C-alpha cells in the first residue's frame, strides 16, 4: 500500500513572509478515512498545523476548506470522494484572508450574513402560545434553514470573490430568503428594499458553484431566483 501524498497550504503570519505548500505522507492502511481524520493524524505529529474543527459530523460548519480544488467539509469528505492519483491538496477556502494555514478570516462572510438581518421580525404582539404555521407554510423553509454557515458556497462564488464587501453572497442570500419565505415574518417590504441595489442580490450571475459545493445539498441559486421574483413582483 503506497502512502497518501498530502500537500497542505501553510502560512504562519509570525514566521512566514509568504505562504507555501508543505508535503506530508500519510499511511492510511487502506482505510477510507475522512479528510479530517488525515488532518488529525498529521496534527498529532506536527502540532503547528492549524485548522478549525468541532462537531466532526458535518453540522457545525467549522472545517470548510478547499480539497483537491473543491470546497467542502473535511469531516464528511472521504478520501474516496476526493483523492485522485493518491494525492490530496488542501488549501484554505479561497477569497478570504488567511489567518494561519487552513484557517481563514471569516469576518466579511459574517458581515454579509448580519447585513440581511437574519432574525425573525414580526411587529404583531406575540400570542400566549406559539404562532401558528401550517405544515405547507413550514415546508417552504426546508432547504433554507439548514445552512450551517460553513462559507463553502460564498467562497466558491466568483461574484463574492470580486465584491465580498457588496454582494451578500449565496449563504447570506439563502438566509435572506429563509426569512422572506417565513409566514411569520412581517418585514418583507423592508427586507426587499435593502436588496434591490445592483450588488446585494443582482451580482449573482447564476454560475451555480454554490450549489455544486454545498455540503448540505442546499440550493442558494434557487433562493436567489426567488428573491428576484419577489423584488420584481413588488416593483412592477
Amino acid at each position, binding site marked *: 500500500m503506497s502512502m497518501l501524498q498530502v500537500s497542505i497550504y501553510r502560512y504562519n503570519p509570525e514566521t512566514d513572509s509568504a505562504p507555501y505548500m508543505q508535503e506530508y505522507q500519510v499511511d492510511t492502511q487502506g482505510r477510507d478515512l475522512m479528510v479530517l481524520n488525515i488532518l488529525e493524524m498529521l496534527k498529532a505529529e506536527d502540532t503547528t498545523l492549524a485548522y478549525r474543527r468541532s462537531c466532526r459530523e*458535518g453540522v457545525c460548519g467549522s472545517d470548510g476548506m478547499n480539497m483537491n480544488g473543491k470546497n467542502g467539509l473535511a469531516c464528511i469528505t472521504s478520501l474516496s470522494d476526493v483523492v485522485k492519483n493518491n494525492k490530496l491538496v488542501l488549501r484554505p477556502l479561497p477569497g478570504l484572508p488567511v*489567518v494561519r494555514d487552513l484557517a481563514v478570516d471569516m469576518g466579511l462572510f459574517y458581515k454579509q450574513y448580519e447585513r440581511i438581518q437574519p432574525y425573525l421580525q414580526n411587529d404583531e404582539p406575540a400570542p400566549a402560545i406559539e404562532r401558528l404555521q401550517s405544515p405547507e407554510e413550514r415546508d417552504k423553509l426546508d432547504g433554507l434553514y439548514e445552512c450551517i454557515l460553513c462559507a463553502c458556497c460564498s467562497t466558491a462564488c466568483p461574484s463574492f470573490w470580486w465584491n465580498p464587501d457588496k454582494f451578500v453572497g449565496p449563504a447570506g442570500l439563502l438566509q435572506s430568503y429563509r426569512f422572506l419565505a417565513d409566514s411569520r415574518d412581517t418585514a418583507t417590504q423592508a427586507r426587499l428594499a435593502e436588496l434591490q441595489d445592483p450588488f446585494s442580490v443582482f451580482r449573482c450571475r447564476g454560475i451555480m458553484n454554490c450549489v455544486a459545493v454545498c455540503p448540505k445539498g442546499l440550493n442558494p441559486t434557487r433562493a436567489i431566483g426567488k428573491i428576484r421574483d419577489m423584488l420584481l413582483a413588488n416593483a412592477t
Partner: protein
Amino acid sequence: MSTMRSLTFDAIIIGGGGAGMRAALELAKSGKKTAVLSKVFPTRSHTVSAQGGITCAIASADPNDDWRWHMYDTVKGGDYITDQDAAEYMCSEGPKAVFELEHMGLPFSRFENGRIYQRPFGGQSKNFGEGGQAARTCAAADRTGHALLHTLYQNNLKNNTTFLNEWFAVDLVKNADGDVVGCIAMCIETGEVVHVKSKATVLATGGAGRIYASTTNALINTGDGIGMALRAGFPMQDMEMWQFHPTGIYGAGVLVTEGCRGEGGYLVNKDGERFMERYAPNAKDLAGRDVVARSMVMEILEGRGCGENGDHVYLKLDHLGEEVLNKRLPGISELSKIFAHADPTEAPIPVVPTCHYMMGGIPTNVHGQAIMQDADGNDQIVGGLFACGEAACVSVHGANRLGGNSLLDLVVFGRAAGMFIESALNEGVEYLDASESDIDSAMTRINRWNESSGGESVADLKVELQSIMQNAFGVFRQEDNMQEGVKKLAELRGRIAEAHLVDKSGAFNTARIEALELDNLMEVAEATAIAALERKESRGAHSRYDYPDRDDVNWLKHSMYFPLEKKVGKRDVNFKPKTVDTFEPKIRTY
C-alpha cells in the same frame, strides 16, 4: 503581569452554546454590559448537534398534557436524585421558554393544525406513568439543536450582544474573599492574553464527552468550565453520572437521535429479535436511555451482537418508509449514509452505546448560582460564579437524563441565570478587586505550558486518558477496574503536568488550545473516576457489577467531589417542590 490588557464587563458568559446564548440574550435585552466569550464561532457549539428535539409539555400533540407529568418522568428518569424543585421549575417554566423560541423564529415542524410538532421520546408518560406513552418532544425535523442554536445566535445579533468569538477562557480569577471576579482569557487569533473583569462569570461551557475514547460529543467538548472551576477549588456534583446514548453509530460515534425510535424504529440483535421487549416490556425501545444502553451491552456480552465481532446491534428503520424518513429524519439518513454506509430506507444502522452527556457538573440553584459546601456540609453560594447548561448540575437530570431534556435545560436555566444576574446587578453587587497575585495564580497554568521545554506530547496523553476512561468507567463498572483506573489517572496527571507544548507561537495556535484542553479533560476525568469509585450502588447511568442494586439508604444523595482533597462527600437531594407533592422514590421499571 502588569502589562496585560484588561476588559471589563458587568457579566461575562463563557461558552456560546444554547445555555450561554440564552443567558446572554436576557442580559443583552437588559442593557447590561455583557459579552459572550466562546472558543468557537457560536453556531459551531455542540448544541448544534442536538437532533431529536426539546421536551416540553406545550400540550400540542396532546391538548391535555400536563407539565407535572413531564416532571414525574424527569424525576423517575433521573432515578430519584433529580432535585425536585429544579425539575418543577424546568417543567413548569418550559412552555414559556419554548414559545419564546418559536416567537424568535425557530422553525419547528408543525402539525396540521399549525401547532408545534411533538414526537414520542424515551421515558415519556401520561398521567404519572399510568397513561401510556406520551409524545412531548418538540422538534424541527431532526435538526432541532441546529435550529435552536442558530435562532439564539440570530436573536443575539438582533439585540447587539457583544461576542468575543474564538477566545479561550483559561482560568477563573478569584479575589481574596474567594469570590469569582472574572477570568483569564486568550484571543485565539492573536494569542493575546487578557484579564476579563466582571461581576458575574457564567460558565456555560457544555460537556466533556471527550474524556472517553468513543463519544457522540464534538471535538471541542473538553469540559473547560468544569476544569476551571475544579482548579479554582470548587466542588462538582454527581460527576460519576455519564449518559451512554444507546444509538451512536458503530465505529464513528456519531449520534443517531432517539427520535428514530420515537418515530417507530427499534433495535434488533443478530437474530433479528426486538430484544427490548424482554428488558422493558411496556416502553420497549423507549425506556430510559440507561436502561436501553445496558440492555444493548447485555445482548452483546451474551453473544447476540451483530457484525463480524458481535460488538454492536442494529437500529431498524426501513419499515418506517421513505416518506417518514425524508420528512422527519432527513439528517439521520444523511449521517447514516456518510458514517455507516447504510441507507436507512434499506439497511439497518449499526449502533452501540456511546458516551453522550454529563449529568453532573457545577452544582447550582435554579438561578444558576454556583454552590459549594461549608465545613458543616451546608450549601453556600459562590460569589460571582454562575453555571448553566450541561456544565451545570441543577440537578434536573439526576442519575440519567431523559431525551430532549437537555435542550429544555439550556433555555430554561440559561434564561433563569440571565434574569437573576440582571436583578442582582440592578441591586448592586460589589466584590473586592483581584490583586496582582490573584491574577498571577490564575496565570500559573498557561505560563507552565508556555515555559515547557520537554516532556510527552499532548496528543499521546489525551489518547491514554480516553482509553483509561473508556475501559474503567463505561456502561458497567466495578471496584477493581475503577481502582486501577483512578491509579492510572493519578499517574497520568503527573505526566500531563510535565508535558510539552512544542509550538509557542501566538497566532491561531491550536496546539496551545489543545494543551489547555487536556488539563481540563484531566480534571473532569479524575472527578468522574473518584466519584464513580465512591458511589457504591447502581443508580441511573452508574451501573456496578459489584453493587447491582440501588441503595436508597446510603445513596439517595448527590455526590460532591472536592478537588483539593480529592474526596467525595454527599449533598441532600431536594424533595420539596413548591406546588406539587413530592414524588417518592419507587422501583424504576419501564
